[in-house]
């Protein structure tokens, strides 16, 4: 069990509006180093919007996103990644015509300095970084347990492997914080158990995980804390067993019984 440390990511009163629609309404959220935090909520609650605000896809209407002492407000998307935030996508967005290994190597490039000139003339630093990246990427594929697929094109991989490759690619950027957007979507129960073990393994290797997921048993099994969003507002933030029995959470998920209202 990894030690839970200082606050890594802090969303302070973040509001995100699209025209007249308020996707996030004054959300406060803290992710602490070394924890697995699950973000749950019904469809349209704003979970993916939280990810998009953190990674710079959207610029929040108001509020502050602070990551490890840096405000993410004015950063470009690739700069956010360089700072140490990496994500996976709800609908798989691998580079299909690249091999699994190349997908991960491309992600490892983020912390490297060599560019076009170094590559063209084969400067020593470029050569060194190339081989470092290759080794690092292979290491990550082994860590996630998909190294046997390293030379296969991403588009030809089985669905489950693609999902895991998404995680591997995100790890390639050596993130401090890993954002997983429904990593178990479309998995059968056995695959979910396997994935849960992988996520735990990732956390135990020193990464902090923020996870969006619908599957309650998966979440209850692995997360240290659960945050519940409903219509863009945070309605619960506690350890899994408490959240599970919170009447407001049950209401948001299952609706209010007809005789209660």
């Amino acid at each position, binding site marked *: 069990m990894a030690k839970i440390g200082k606050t890594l990511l802090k969303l302070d009163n973040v509001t995100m509006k699209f025209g007249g629609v308020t996707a996030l309404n004054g959300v406060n959220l803290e992710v602490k180093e070394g924890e697995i935090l699950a973000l749950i909520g019904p469809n349209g609650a704003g979970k993916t919007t939280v990810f998009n605000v953190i990674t710079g896809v959207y610029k929040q209407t108001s509020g502050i996103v602070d990551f490890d002492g840096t405000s993410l407000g004015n950063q470009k998307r690739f700069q956010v990644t360089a700072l140490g935030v990496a994500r996976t996508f709800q609908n798989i967005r691998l580079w299909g015509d690249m091999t699994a290994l190349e997908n991960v190597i491309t992600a490892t490039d983020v912390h490297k300095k060599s560019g076009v000139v170094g590559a063209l003339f084969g400067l020593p630093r*470029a050569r060194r970084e190339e081989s470092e990246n290759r080794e690092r990427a292979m290491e990550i594929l082994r860590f996630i347990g998909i190294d046997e697929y390293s030379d296969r*094109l991403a588009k030809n991989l089985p669905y489950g492997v693609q999902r895991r490759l998404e995680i591997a690619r995100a790890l390639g950027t050596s993130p401090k914080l890993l954002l997983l957007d429904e990593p178990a979507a479309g998995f059968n129960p056995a695959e979910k158990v396997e994935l849960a073990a992988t996520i735990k393994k990732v956390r135990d290797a020193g990464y902090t995980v923020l996870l969006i997921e619908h599957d309650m048993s998966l979440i209850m099994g692995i997360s240290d804390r659960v945050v519940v969003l409903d219509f863009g507002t945070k309605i619960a933030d506690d350890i899994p067993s408490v959240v599970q029995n919170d009447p407001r959470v049950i209401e948001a998920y299952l609706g209010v019984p007809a005789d209660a209202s």
Partner: protein
Amino acid sequence: MKIRNYWNLRDYGANIWENAGRPVRVAIVLVSIVLVGLLPFTGGSFLATPIASFDAVLVYPVGMFVLMSLGLNIVVGKSGMLDLGYVAFFAIGAYTMAILGTTTKLNTWEIMPIGIAFAMIAGVLLGIPTLRLRGDYLAIVTLGFGEIVRLVVLNSTWSKGPNGIANIPMPPHIGPLKFELENQRVFFWVVMAMILLTIWMIRRLSVRRPGRAWEAIRQDEDAAELMGVPTLKYKIWSFTLGAAVGGAAGVLYASKNLYIAPEMFTLNVSILILACVVFGGIGNIWGVVIGATVLGYLPDRIRFISDARLLVFGLVLVIVMNFRPDGLLPRKKREKAIVKREANA
């Protein structure tokens, strides 16, 4: 499965290449270079073109088309940006040669780096504001840029407007090799050297960081950016390297043609070069080389049917694109390890 390999020339060729050791590879490359280098001496054969002399056709259009198509392929094929104004960089290179060649004492080889630099600067200046656009919008802006460059040289006094610039000097001889109008084989060898240099550059970049960045941008630009690829930077690089090749082709073209005028740099050229890339196979170096060779050579070879020539040319394009919609040699990555594993089994 074995038999299919023989029919699939690309895989067949790639297999030979991959299973060959270093000496064999060097031998293949050297023999190929020598064979292509001997092409100007085959003028008397069935390859000869009816009106223009064969070695002149090999330089322009064939060699020039191959060179420019390879340059455009960096932009369109590698990083997936549709550039309809590629002729602008060709024009910038040509006008640099024409103006500096007629007003200063610099020779072609001294002007070459200047022309390339101007084309690259133009690439960066155009790239910074426009490469935030994608797809069709980028195509329209680049199309506009191509026309702007042409209209500027058409209406400026320093470029002698529609009269064009004449008396551009030929390149000085390289050792015993003299450049002549009657016999253009030395020009051909120079174009060939430039093509080889471009191929070397593309191959080198493709397997390293820039190539991966371009590939990621082409396949999913948002995912690339979110995985830490500085997309704007690499798009500008791609644009600039493409421009450099176009500029180099322009310098040599002006120095070979001795005369240039704005009407040589119309939208048609951009489209034709793009057609070479698409016809040969977007993103595949060898496809592009073959595509540009065919499209450069064919119109001159069938010149004997005079007026019907463009009709036949168009027909060939339509028929080939129907049977091979991804071009003559499509970009398709092979899963090397899998191929090997199956071969062992």
